[in-house]
C-alpha cells in the first residue's frame, strides 16, 4: 500500500514534508495525522486513509511532486541484513528510518553506520551557497517572475487625506486599523469597477461576482496572502476581526488553503515599516494590486493655504490588458473619495 504526495490545493504541484507525526514502524489507523505537508499555500495536516505499519520513504524536509511516493503502509517488516539488524538494535536506531542501499533494497551494515554517524559531511561553509527554497518561496518566485514577464502593468498614485478615518477610529472601542479602512474602501469601489475586480484571459475578460480582497502578510521568510471573502458586503469591524485572525494564522503557518484561494484583488501595506510609497507586483490572474504606504503628517495646500494633514500614498498597479488608464484612475479616485469620506462606506 503506497502513500503518495496528496494534492492539497488546486494549484499544488509539489509538497514539502515539514514533519512526520508518526514514526516508521508505528501502526496507524485511518484518520491518524501522518505528516504536516507544506504546499505552495499553507502547511497542512495529512491523514492516513487506511491502516497499516508506516514505512517512511520521503524524509522530513524533502520536496516531493504530487503523486510521488512518500511512504508505505504495509505488513511492517523492514528489509535489513542480520548484521544491520543487530547494529541498529545495539545503537538504538530505527531501521525503518535508514535509507537502504542493498541490492534488494535491504538495509546494510554501512547504511546503519552512515545513519548513526550522520549525513555525509556538508560542503564547506560558503556565503554564496544556496539555501534550499521552501515550497512557498518557490511558488512566490515562479509567480512573481511570471507576472513581471507577462503582465503589462502600469502604476497610478494618489494621495489620500486620512483625517476623517483617523477621527472615526477615535470614536470606537478597539478601532479597526488603517488597512481595514483601505480594504473596505477598495471592496466598495471594486463592486463599482468590475474590470479591476476581474481577470484577463486570452479568450476574454473574467468578471467575478464576488469581491474577495487578499491581504499580503509577511511571514517568517515568506509571503502569504489570506483572503477576505465578500469584503464589500462586510462591515469594517468584521473585516478587522477577519484580517487580524487570518494574519495571525498566516504568521503561525496554521492557515489553510481555502483561506488563501480565490482573491480577486490584493492590498499590500508596508506603512507599518514607515514606507511612504511603493509599487507592488500583480498576483496573476488578478487585474490589480494596491500598494499602501504609511499615514504621515504632511504639509498640503487646503483652500489656498498650507496646512498639515495625515496623508497616505496609495499606488495602484494594474494589468493594462483589462484595466486601462482611465478605468484605473476612476477606481483609484473612488477609493480616495471613500477614505476621505468614510461615512459613505458605512451607509
Amino acid at each position, binding site marked *: 500500500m503506497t502513500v503518495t504526495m496528496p494534492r492539497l490545493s488546486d494549484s499544488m504541484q509539489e509538497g514539502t514534508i515539514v514533519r512526520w507525526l508518526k514514526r516508521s514502524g508505528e501502526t496507524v489507523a485511518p484518520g491518524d495525522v501522518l505528516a504536516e505537508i507544506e504546499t505552495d499555500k499553507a502547511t497542512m495536516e495529512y491523514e492516513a486513509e487506511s491502516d497499516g505499519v508506516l514505512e517512511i520513504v520521503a524524509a522530513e524536509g524533502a520536496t516531493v511532486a504530487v503523486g510521488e511516493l512518500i511512504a508505505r503502509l504495509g505488513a511492517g517488516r523492514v528489509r535489513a*541484513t*542480520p*548484521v*544491520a*539488524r*543487530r547494529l541498529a538494535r545495539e545503537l538504538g536506531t530505527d531501521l525503518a528510518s535508514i535509507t537502504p*542501499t*542493498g*541490492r534488494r533494497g535491504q538495509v*546494510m*551494515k554501512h547504511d546503519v553506520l552512515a545513519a548513526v554517524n550522520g549525513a555525509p559531511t556538508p560542503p564547506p561553509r560558503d556565503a554564496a551557497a544556496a539555501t534550499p527554497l521552501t515550497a512557498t518561496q518557490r511558488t512566490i518566485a515562479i509567480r512573481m517572475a511570471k507576472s513581471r514577464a507577462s503582465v503589462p502593468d502600469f502604476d497610478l498614485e494618489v494621495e489620500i487625506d486620512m483625517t476623517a478615518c483617523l477621527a472615526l477610529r477615535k470614536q470606537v472601542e478597539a478601532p479597526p486599523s488603517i488597512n481595514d479602512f483601505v480594504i473596505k474602501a477598495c471592496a466598495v469601489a471594486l463592486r463599482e469597477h468590475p474590470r479591476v475586480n476581474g481577470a484577463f484571459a486570452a479568450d476574454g475578460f473574467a468578471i467575478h461576482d464576488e469581491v474577495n480582497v487578499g491581504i499580503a502578510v509577511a511571514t517568517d521568510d515568506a509571503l502569504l496572502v489570506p483572503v477576505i471573502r465578500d469584503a464589500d458586503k462586510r462591515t469594517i469591524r468584521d473585516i478587522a476581526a477577519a484580517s487580524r485572525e487570518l494574519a495571525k494564522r498566516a504568521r503561525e503557518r496554521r492557515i489553510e488553503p481555502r483561506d488563501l484561494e480565490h482573491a480577486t484583488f490584493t492590498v499590500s501595506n508596508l506603512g507599518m515599516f514607515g514606507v511612504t510609497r511603493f509599487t507592488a507586483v500583480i498576483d496573476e490572474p488578478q487585474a490589480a494590486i494596491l500598494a499602501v504606504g504609511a499615514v504621515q503628517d504632511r504639509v498640503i495646500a487646503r483652500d489656498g493655504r498650507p496646512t498639515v494633514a495625515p496623508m497616505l500614498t496609495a499606488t495602484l498597479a494594474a494589468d493594462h490588458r483589462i484595466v486601462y488608464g482611465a478605468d484605473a484612475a476612476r477606481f483609484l479616485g473612488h477609493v480616495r473619495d471613500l477614505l476621505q469620506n468614510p461615512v459613505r462606506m458605512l451607509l
Partner: protein
Amino acid sequence: MSEVEFRDAIKQALDEELARDDSVIFFGEDVAKPGGVFAVTGGLQETHGESRVFDTPIAELAMAGAAFGAAITGLRPVLEIMFGDFLALAMDSLVNQSAKYWYISNEQASVPLVVRSAVGAGGRFGAIHSQTPIAWFHGVPGLKIVAPSTPGDAKALLKSAIRDDNPVLFFEHKRLYSTKGEEGPETLPLGAANVVREGTDLTLVTAMVGVHDALKAAGTVEQDVEIIDLRTIRPLDLETIKASVAKTNRLLVVEEGPSTGGWSNGVLAQVTEHAIEDLDDAWRLTTGDAPIPYSPSLEDAFLPGAEAIAASITERIR
C-alpha cells in the same frame, strides 16, 4: 628464499618422511618405476627401495584394503590413487574401515593412513578424470581432508598428514603441479586456515586452485577482498572464518565442485548458524550440478575461475 615446484614439494615431503621414519611406505599405480603419471614421485623407489616404494595392480579397493591393513599393523602407509575419481572404488576401505577403526576398537588402535590423489578440472581429462570428490568424503567422521594451494603448504601439510595418527585424504590439484612457490615451514597444523590476503569488504573462503583464482579476481575488483585459504577442508577452521566475517560482514565461498552437497554448503551453514548477526550477505560460487564437460571451451566456462569470481563479487556487492 628459493622457489620450488608443487610436484617437487610433494616428492620432497615423501622423500623426507620416508627417510625420517622407517614405518612410512608409499605405493600406488605407476608411482615407482614410471615415477607417477604427473611426474611427482620419480626416484623415490631408487632412494628408499622396492619394499617401501612400489607399484600396484589397477585395483583401488585392494590397494586401500592393503593400506588399511598395513596401517593397523604398525606401518604408516601413503597410498596414491591416481585420479580422485577412482576413490569411488576405494570407498569401503576408507569410509567403513579406516574412518571407523579408532571408534570400533574402543580407541585401542588408530589408522595412520594417507591417501594422496590428483583432483580437479581444467586439464581436458573429461567427466571421470576431472572431479574434485571432496564432497564424497566430507560427511565422514574420522577422515581428515587436506587441500593445499602452494608448494610450501603442500610439503608441510603432507608431512603433517603422514605424521598424523588418523586417516587423511590429501588432494592435489592437477593444475597446481607445475606452479612454483616459496618453501614453507617443516610442518603445518591440520585444521588451520591461512589468511592469504587481508581485506575489509568481503571474506572469500576457498582452497587449492580457487585461492589463485581468488587472488587474481581480487586484483580486478573495487572491493577490498579478504581471502582465506582453508588448507584443510575437514576439520574446518571456523574461528578464522568467523573472525574475518566479523570484520567484513560478507562471505563468499568458492568451490570447484557441484553446488548440491558441496563442502562450501557446510562453510555457509556453519557461519550462518554461528555468526548470522555478523552477516550482510553470504553466498557460494560453485560449478553447476552437472558432469564436467570435455569440450575445452565448455570446461573453462564451467569452472569458477577468476573472471567468474570477479563477476560474482561485482554483481553481489554494490
